């Protein structure tokens, strides 16, 4: 991973905006799916696919690729959008999201799209899979890193903490978890439904190194990933504080957008907001 410079950061921010647009376009056509979570993770997925990960879209299963496990499978539309922009498949294929026969299933399936690395949707089971890959890789002295993106709501599932305990005691330093701390879940705010705080202390007590960042600041995220790579005694969790729906003012902070897509009219409005950077640019160049 190279160091960031200002020009690169700006490029990544612009890419994140394009990826958000592709996400909204695919959700409009899909007619179902999740909106808030994927928008909130657009910056991190952009940073992962366009700067952090050692990967090759033309050789998706190359042996020493970094592994990215998505535990909260429902935000996969943002991963699909980032992968399409990275060159894993044509952008036009995003229009098949959630359609019959598509590689882009409503929740990710590795067998249909091997570059996804795992199959997920039922919450709480990604960290264990990531830990298994990290454990196996360490047995064989392999150098690649394993990343696991998780939601905050899924931390309520017991399987997560079994995996956190296992990863901590086995000092899986090649494993980095990234938590989308957006504070929302289906039934409301996480702290009202089933509180997670003190979250940092929970992971520290499970022998994890914890870094908290602004999940929309790409430089902070890249720095945190670099720091995780320098920790040799334990796994690292990056708690990324994000705004659900980030980038579209009507959706930001509104948990009712967790599990629904925009309709056509809403979608057009949201795309306009993204293309004009929230009104900062007058002409849309449509």
């Amino acid at each position: 991973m190279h160091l960031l410079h200002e020009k690169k950061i700006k490029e990544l921010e612009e890419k994140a905006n394009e990826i958000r647009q592709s996400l909204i376009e695919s959700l409009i056509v899909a007619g179902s799916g999740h909106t808030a979570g994927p928008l909130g993770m657009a910056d991190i997925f952009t940073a992962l696919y366009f700067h952090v990960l050692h990967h090759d879209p033309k050789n998706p299963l190359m042996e020493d690729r970094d592994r990215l496990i998505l535990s909260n499978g429902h935000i996969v539309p943002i991963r699909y959008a980032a992968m399409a922009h990275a060159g894993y498949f044509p952008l036009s294929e995003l229009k098949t999201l959630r359609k019959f026969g598509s590689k882009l299933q409503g929740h990710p399936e590795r067998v249909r799209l091997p570059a996804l690395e795992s199959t997920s949707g039922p919450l709480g089971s990604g960290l264990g899979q990531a830990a298994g890959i990290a454990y196996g890789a360490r047995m064989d002295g392999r150098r690649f890193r394993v990343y696991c993106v998780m939601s905050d709501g899924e931390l309520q599932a017991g399987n997560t903490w079994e995996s956190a305990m296992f990863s901590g005691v086995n000092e899986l330093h090649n494993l980095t978890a990234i938590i989308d701390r957006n504070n929302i879940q289906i039934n409301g705010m996480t702290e009202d439904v089933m509180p997670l705080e003190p979250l940092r202390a929970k992971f520290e007590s499970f022998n994890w190194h914890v870094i908290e960042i602004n999940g929309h600041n790409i430089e902070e995220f890249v720095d945190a990933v670099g720091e995780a790579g320098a920790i040799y005694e334990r796994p690292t969790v990056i708690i990324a504080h994000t705004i659900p729906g980030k980038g579209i003012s009507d959706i930001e902070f509104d948990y009712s957008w967790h599990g629904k897509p925009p309709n056509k009219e809403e979608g057009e409005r949201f795309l306009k907001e993204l293309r004009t950077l929230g009104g900062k640019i007058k002409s849309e160049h449509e």
Partner: protein
Amino acid sequence: MLHKEAHLVENIFNTKSLKAEPTRDGYGEGVVEAGKQNKDVVVLCADLAESTRSHWFKETYPERYIELGVAEQNMATVASGLANYGKIPFIASYAAFNPGRNNEQIRTTISLNEVPVKICGMHAGVSVGPDGATHQALEDIALMRVQPNMVVLVPADKEEAKRATIAAATNGKPTYLRFAREKTPVFTTEKTPFEIGKAEVLWEEESPEVAIIGSGPVLYNALLAAHELSEEGIRSIVVNNHTIKPIDEKTIISVAQKARAVVTVEEHQVAGGAGSAVTEVLAQHYPVPIEFVGVKDRFGQSGEPDELIAHYGMDKSAIIEAVKKVIARK
């Protein structure tokens, strides 16, 4: 009479002189052998190393033994990751928890994800004995056989358990293996044919009136029943149906055509188990009267293995009774 090509032990009907060993020992020895053959074989265990016999692997290959603690859900997900990376993980715990407790993790991260994890369910059936109903898995075959991509193996004795374990290590598929705690007669030999997906005829008489299709250690009771029935003049075929999935349709249809009546025998709920799998084949291809020997919609309880097998109707006399009943229905 005994099928010569089955190469069963010689003194098979002299129960007292037969060697008795638990099928879990077959797993324990088999997984060490599989580990010797392939360095990618790893064993995961959830705080039950000795009773699952995983400790033999742990002693032989400590660097390939992974302890999970009492966390069967995590055991399934970590194994999924290991298999995804390229290892061949065997995950061992009591069947009541593995695949009982971690069923969803197996479904999503192993079966749907198509990774070759070997799920080893120990202490299956009422023959666990004194531990009681909580630890007597009677629904594990049903849980596993309804999952697409899953292979389901139920070895009948320690020798077959060992060979099933070794075979599972190389089949490249998600696989469930069912083992028992109690010592049971070892009646197959190294020469007995064993191939995943291929049922074996162990006993066959001319013009049979019934085919008894059994899975697991209670298959020995089926052989005892066939022997006694023969002395009464009732002729039968006994089939070892060790692979519940993919089931050997050809052999099952063939014995049903010969006998025109079937009794299935298993130490499991009759709903959804090995007998149901046989029935699904015959209902479609060659319908005949069928009786089921197994547990009939009840939980187990504490007791000695033999008395529980008799109480829940899976001993020799229960099989003989089922045979007479099914013949009367022809």
